């Protein structure tokens, strides 16, 4: 996480647009702040939490569309297929672009892109398909480019999608988690979370031909119930604006075992789960 030095007192202060952060000019301006002309003090342009890294001041808004940085894992939905590229909605300002050259072709990594691939793009990804991809960088016109050149990325199967505000998903080392209750959770940094059945096969066994097939593995009733429970827990957490990591989801899951799955939709059930999680978090934090 960020390095926190306790020197100045404006740390983690909640600011509103137009509020002065600091008059000290040796700081650099980051996102969400601007410099007014006369007294050269930093003013925040967004309502959010002030964060300082060495000399850089930024204000992180509470609720905003996802602004990506390189290397982020994101989940996206294909909105349009044009020649040699796909348009992908990643809950960001603009649709991201996935080039034909940026995906794994069926039949292993070595296969070169042929003429036929260009014409049969829909065999790989069609409109509406969900995929996990990595944030590669952005073109000069500001639109972001993705790539799925890695076996753990690609089409998402055997599960369902939950959408939460992007600010809640914390950046951590890996975003592919397998929860204790035997369910896979993929936390997209853009707020799209995919909860699916645990794929027993590890990465290299995946036969390259089937990575774009459109059929699910059979899901038995108990796994389906756990997936539903996890989805409802994530919903409860996002409704009370709590940040979401794999540990927090695990806590929420245990807390929710008290209720049958469909009661988790009720407000008071959500209330109970989140207070339970908050309590458990404070206990854990006090141990550190």
């Amino acid at each position, binding site marked *: 996480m960020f390095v926190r030095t306790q020197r100045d007192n404006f740390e983690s202060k909640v600011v509103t647009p137009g509020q002065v952060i600091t008059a000290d000019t040796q700081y650099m301006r980051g996102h969400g702040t601007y410099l007014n002309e006369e007294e050269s003090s930093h003013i925040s342009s967004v309502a959010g939490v002030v964060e300082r890294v060495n000399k850089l001041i930024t204000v992180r808004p509470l609720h905003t569309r996802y602004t990506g940085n390189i290397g982020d894992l994101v989940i996206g*939905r*294909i*909105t349009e297929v044009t020649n040699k590229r796909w348009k992908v909605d990643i809950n960001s300002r603009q649709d991201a672009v996935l080039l034909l050259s940026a995906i794994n072709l069926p039949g292993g990594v070595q296969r070169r892109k042929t003429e036929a691939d260009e014409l049969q793009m829909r065999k790989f990804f*069609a*409109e*509406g*398909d*969900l995929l996990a991809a990595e944030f590669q960088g952005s073109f000069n016109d500001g639109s972001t480019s993705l790539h799925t050149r890695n076996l753990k990325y690609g*089409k*998402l*199967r*055997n*599960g*369902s*999608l939950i959408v939460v505000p992007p600010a809640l998903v914390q950046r951590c080392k890996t975003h592919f988690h397998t929860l204790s209750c035997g369910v896979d959770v993929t936390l997209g940094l853009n707020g799209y979370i995919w909860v699916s059945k645990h794929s027993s096969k590890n990465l290299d066994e995946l036969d390259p031909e089937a990575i774009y097939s*459109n*059929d*699910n593995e*059979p*899901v038995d*009733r108990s796994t*389906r*119930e756990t*997936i*539903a*429970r996890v*989805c*409802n827990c994530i*919903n409860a957490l996002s*409704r009370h604006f709590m940040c979401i990591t794999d540990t927090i989801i695990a806590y929420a899951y245990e807390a929710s075992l008290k209720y*049958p*799955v*469909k009661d*988790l*939709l*009720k*407000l008071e059930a959500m209330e109970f789960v989140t207070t339970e999680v908050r309590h458990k978090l404070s206990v854990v934090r006090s141990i550190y």
Partner: protein
Amino acid sequence: MAPVLISALEADYILKGIDDNLRADGRGRLDYREVILETGLITQAHGSARCRLGEGTDVLVGVKVDIGTVDIDGTEEEVATVKAKRGRVVCNVECSPIASQQFAGRGADDINNELTQMMSRVLNGPQGGLNLEKLCIIPGKACWIVYIDALVLDYAGNIVDTMFMTTRAALFNTQVPKAIIHDLGDGEVEFDLSEDVEEWERIEGWEHVPISVTLNKIGSRHIVDATPLEELTTEAKLHVMVNRNGKICGIQKSGSGSIEHSLLSEMVQVHIFVI
């Protein structure tokens, strides 16, 4: 923001879930989401209600009552006299763009038109439950016109059921001012409205107003109260309007799939079980 597209894999997952009676959010095939209903929110309207289904679909209905003339021109003599002694109901449904991107600009036009026609088809006529004769002040001259305006604030599936529930609540909440009739002797009749609020009374027959149950056919099964993703995988939707004493007040199918004959009668029985 309601998704517009769905992937084949998600659709297949939902289909299989419904087959063994466990949907993506844990509900069974015939379980409704939690309904939160409030009435009397808008002061200027004669009656209003707001209903939220789960934490998704949100519909606000306002009812205003106004005095209008009866339109009887052009119809046969016989039908004209019957119409002269009746008030009427005018409905209008509006999906506001804040509910979802697709409703911005002209996108909402045909959905609005479809919902408005469905509402007026059910509420105007004997099966609407309201006692229209009572709404007439002076036969042939003046009568009450009930304007029902529904506004969809948030879209999370199953708009039709929420809309009918909220309309019924709003009609329950409606207070109609009392009209005092003065007979001016030579057949001329005059009326004016009493100001004090106590004398206002409810529209007679509000309790017979029907509510709707929407059955979504997915694969060979059918579910109730579908979420947006489930609605995208639905082949055919069957709206069954039912009133208090179990009478069917209207059936309408929408969506592009077809329903097996056997499944159809089974779906129609379902509504009694749900009510």
